[in-house]
């Protein structure tokens, strides 16, 4: 082994140094996260120390690092694969032990699990085999040809994605439409899908402002709040139905967009971001302090649920004079009906947002937004009024935020200023940025990653946020401009078809 090291760039002592460095890092990171734990005992809270976890974490790090060194120096493919597999098994072991909360020192839990039944043996062997095979076969010597190959592959994937955007979009839409039929009885699945869909809609709305027009808006949640409170207040004070309030909420939010936009849109970049951030906070603080109108921190509760387009009601005990949704369609009463209806409602709202955005992108106004993002002076020299163009982007983005807010209010039945903190703005902005500015499908992916995954892995308790953070770091490392970060021309011309297509637009 030492001969192998000596022949390459790295010699033995440097490798030991490197491994020690990573061991120390692993120790520092794991000792607080894994090593110490508060346990609820009858005598009170006690600190439990889990040195086994710390040791495994350090071991996994060192072994994994050694594997990577082998890979870097092109030593023994078999060795590389064995080390990586060992490291993966150790990480797995660590997680299992962590979840089980029992501190055995001797036998690895992994082995116990694997040999507990035939099925788990097969699964365990398959797990090891897959990691081993992946490690073994991906570790060819990386020559320049290989690098080129992988670049070619990624550009091929990109091309495949780009030429099939419509198909992918259609498949996505169909998936979301049949989603309730697959998970019809699973209440949490529908709830989660609805939540993700709200964020997809908010992401699409903000995408108009940030992705297309290039205006960094850190206070988008203000429009969401305006929409939610407009619906809640209109429905409580004037007894208006959801269907009437929905457009009103959009109009209110859009007017707030214009009110905010007028003074601030002469600002650019960082300055605009700060002012919008302030605006978002102003709205929240007003909501907290205007007790007579908004109920302050108590919020507004028992907000009216939407009816089935005014025809039927979803509650078990139907009020006088209306009929129940189940009676209308001659079905058994089920509390799921309302949830599924709400899911479809937000799906339709989100699709409308998407459709409008896609249409606008092809119209002069949408083109002007994109041009404004690229070069404001050039835009002005072409006769585009930058103020009006930006205002329209702000207002339309705000309008969709308002729709989403009204939906949020009617779904929750309760709203308070706590739902509209800066964190929400940041999450929505992160969805847009992670998805790739201006990419509609990217927003969907990012919303699933940002909202769906943390909810799905709720069992991991607070560690899910750690994993979530790591995931974001990973995305920013590998796809620094977002998951799907390329802009396609809204129109591509074949020379033969040119006349025809040119006639259609503008």
């Amino acid at each position, binding site marked *: 082994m030492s001969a192998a090291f000596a022949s390459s760039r790295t010699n033995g002592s440097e490798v030991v140094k490197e491994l020690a460095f990573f061991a120390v890092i692993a120790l520092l990171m794991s000792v607080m996260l894994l090593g110490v734990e508060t346990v609820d005992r009858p005598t009170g809270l006690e600190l439990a120390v889990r040195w086994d976890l710390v040791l495994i974490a350090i071991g996994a790090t060192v072994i994994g690092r050694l594997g990577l060194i082998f890979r870097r120096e092109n030593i023994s493919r078999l060795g590389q694969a064995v080390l990586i597999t060992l490291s993966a098994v150790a990480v797995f072991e660590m997680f299992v032990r962590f979840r089980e909360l029992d501190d055995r020192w001797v036998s690895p839990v992994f082995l116990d699990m694997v040999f507990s039944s035939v099925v788990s043996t097969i699964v365990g062997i398959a797990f090891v085999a897959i990691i081993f095979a992946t490690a073994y076969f991906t570790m060819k010597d990386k020559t320049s040809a290989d690098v080129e190959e992988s670049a070619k592959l990624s550009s091929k994937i990109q091309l495949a994605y780009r030429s099939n955007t419509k198909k992918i979009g259609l498949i996505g839409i169909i998936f979301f439409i049949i989603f309730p039929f697959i998970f019809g009885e699973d209440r949490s699945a529908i709830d989660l899908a609805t939540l993700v869909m709200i964020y997809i809609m908010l992401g699409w709305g903000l995408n108009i402002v940030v992705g297309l027009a290039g205006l960094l808006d850190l206070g988008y949640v203000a429009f969401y709040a305006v929409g939610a409170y407009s619906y809640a207040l209109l429905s409580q004070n004037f007894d208006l139905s959801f269907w009437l309030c929905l457009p009103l909420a959009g109009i209110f939010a859009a007017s707030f967009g214009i009110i905010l936009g007028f003074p601030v849109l002469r600002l650019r970049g960082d300055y605009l971001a700060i002012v919008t951030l302030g605006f978002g906070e102003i709205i929240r603080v007003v909501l907290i302090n205007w007790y007579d109108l908004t109920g302050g921190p108590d919020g507004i509760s028992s907000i009216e649920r939407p009816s089935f387009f005014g025809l039927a009601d979803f509650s078990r005990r139907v009020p006088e004079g209306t009929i129940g949704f189940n009676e209308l369609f001659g079905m058994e009463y089920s509390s799921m009906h309302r949830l599924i209806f709400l899911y479809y409602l937000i799906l339709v709202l989100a699709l409308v947002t998407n459709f409008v955005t896609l249409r606008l992108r092809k119209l002069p106004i949408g083109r002007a937004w994109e041009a404004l993002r690229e070069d404001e002076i050039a835009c*002005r020299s072409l*006769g585009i009024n930058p103020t009006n163009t930006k205002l329209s982007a702000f207002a339309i983005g705000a309008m969709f935020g308002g729709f989403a807010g009204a939906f949020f209010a009617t779904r929750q039945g309760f709203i308070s200023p706590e739902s509209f903190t800066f964190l929400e703005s940041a999450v929505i902005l992160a969805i847009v940025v992670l998805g790739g500015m201006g990419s509609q499908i990217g927003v969907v992916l990012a919303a699933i990653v940002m909202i769906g995954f943390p909810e799905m892995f709720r069992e991991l308790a607070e560690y899910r946020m750690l994993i979530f953070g790591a995931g974001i770091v990973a995305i920013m490392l590998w796809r620094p401009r977002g998951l799907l970060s390329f802009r396609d021309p809204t129109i591509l011309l074949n020379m033969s078809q040119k006349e025809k297509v040119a*006639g259609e637009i503008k």
Partner: protein
Amino acid sequence: MSMLKIEGVHTFYGNIEALKGIDMEVNEGEIVTLIGANGAGKTTLLMTCCGSPQASKGRILFEGQDISRMPMHEICQLGIQQSPEGRRIFPRMSVYENLQMGAITQDPKYFNSDIEMVFDLFPRLKERINQRAGTMSGGEQQMLAIGRALMGRPRLLLLDEPSLGLAPLIVKQIFETVEKINREKKMTVFLVEQNAFHALKLAHRGYVMVNGNITLSGTGAELLANPEVRAAYLEGGH
């Protein structure tokens, strides 16, 4: 008849007086060039005509209408289009979309014939129609910038250093096209250039700018023959 008339224009950047009382005019159907060294104020004058920055003293008349207090986008809608310094095309948009942007304030009914006209002048743009503008060569980008300005159906075309950073052969091509636009479309052109030799050869009339003042004016041929101009801008080069 003078199409663009600049009367005693002063322009400031903060406290710095960039233009110190400029008088000049551009007549209909002419190519007028403004030459001068770096920092003389050529681009400032051109941008002042477009309303950004605005002149703090003096008047700018376009077809008899005072435009010196109008915002940039309104001036451009009157029929003044420019190919700005550094071209400023939209790099992430395709060539076709860039040309669409140029026509954004115009009636769509002209679009098809206008784009044909641009493609006739610059066949290279037609070849690159779906390409991202930012990935094209400098010369092609300059063609696109001029083409985009033409899509706005201008009566006065302002060109700010179209030769900037281009190979001599491409410069020649661009200047020939400018001449063709002037001759065939009867387009009035106001050309700001450092490349004095080419510009003066092309132009009907020329002005020389030094430190925010117009120091010399005359026909292109006169200025080319003028010993001062030769000494300052032509000797040693070309």
